[in-house]
């Protein structure tokens, strides 16, 4: 066997992976290893592969991903904290043939925006809600979120989340799955290559269901927040697997009946 040099491999015809052109060249402000960046990247790939750029309206939240519009080369509306589903409702009703999605953190979607989340899902708006559950308020510096695990420390639960005074972590995906308006509810993660590939498949399904007007699609991504959790990115992924996944198990929670 002849020796193969890098220059023989690095040729356009041998390309195996390149970031989507829907992902802009702006350097993302996310902390090293943060799942937000990975999810943006996969979303960009799906928008490109499904040829949706000219049809997509995305709604960004208040949270670390507030600046999502700097990274995705699509039309984006930046909502008030928790209100993205309300904006998306109007966009979809007024422009029914567009691909409309919200992108929200757990503070945004499961605390301040609970009413908008529940009622948007209950009306079965034909939109996709992407929910980044990192168990914490990342942007504001690591305060307790409604999703923070029992006993988990944060800057506002410094002795650990105490159920008696702070309640239990809320499982939004399970809650919205109970509503007849949702057609597809799934929980995914992006800490492994297999996980990322599964998320991509889930996103593509959501595109298809939205096209077919099946109802609300809800994709939760159990994600990390190395800064808020005060861990290295690699530690945070391990901690997530050991602590978050048992409480927020990955997989489909609800799929359309005939799929």
């Amino acid at each position, binding site marked *: *066997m*002849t020796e*193969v040099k*890098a220059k*023989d*491999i*690095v*040729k356009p015809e*041998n*390309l*195996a*992976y*390149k*970031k989507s052109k829907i*992902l802009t060249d702006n*350097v*993302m402000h*996310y*902390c*090293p*290893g*943060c*799942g*937000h*960046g*990975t999810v943006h*990247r996969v979303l960009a790939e799906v928008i490109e592969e499904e040829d949706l750029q000219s049809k997509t309206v995305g709604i960004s939240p208040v949270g670390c991903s507030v600046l999502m519009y700097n990274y995705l080369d699509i039309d984006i509306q930046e909502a008030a904290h928790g209100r993205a589903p309300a904006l998306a409702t109007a966009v979809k009703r007024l422009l029914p043939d567009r691909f409309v999605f919200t992108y929200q953190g757990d503070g945004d979607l499961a605390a301040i925006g609970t009413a908008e989340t529940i009622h948007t899902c209950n009306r079965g708006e034909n939109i996709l809600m992407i929910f980044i559950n990192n168990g914490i308020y990342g942007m504001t510096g690591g305060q307790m979120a409604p999703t923070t695990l029992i006993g988990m420390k944060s800057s506002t639960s410094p002795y650990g989340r105490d159920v008696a005074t702070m309640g239990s972590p809320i499982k939004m995906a399970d809650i919205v799955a109970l509503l007849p308006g949702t057609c597809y509810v799934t929980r995914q993660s*992006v*800490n*492994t*290559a297999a996980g*990322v*590939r599964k998320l991509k498949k889930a996103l593509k399904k959501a595109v298809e269901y939205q096209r077919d007007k099946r109802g609300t699609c809800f994709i939760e991504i159990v994600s990390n927040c*190395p800064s808020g959790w005060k861990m*290295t*990115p*690699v530690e945070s*992924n391990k901690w997530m697997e050991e602590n978050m996944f048992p409480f927020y198990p990955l997989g489909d929670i609800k799929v359309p009946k005939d799929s």
Partner: protein
Amino acid sequence: MAKIKGAVIIDTERCKGCEVCVVTCPTQTLALAVEVNGKGYHYSYAAFPETCIGCANCAVVCPDGVITVYKLKVE
């Protein structure tokens, strides 16, 4: 026997040194550099390029989308 040879191009200036790609690589091709880039991060690089199989796992988990992967079937 056909064998897949891979190569990665890492935009080291945009790399944040999170190490996620390093631990993901099934062939231990990658490592963090001792040196830092312009942003002060120990960037990822192909420490053992000859072991790369072009599986793209590193690129797929990279939050910053800085890895490009090529692969070639060699007989």
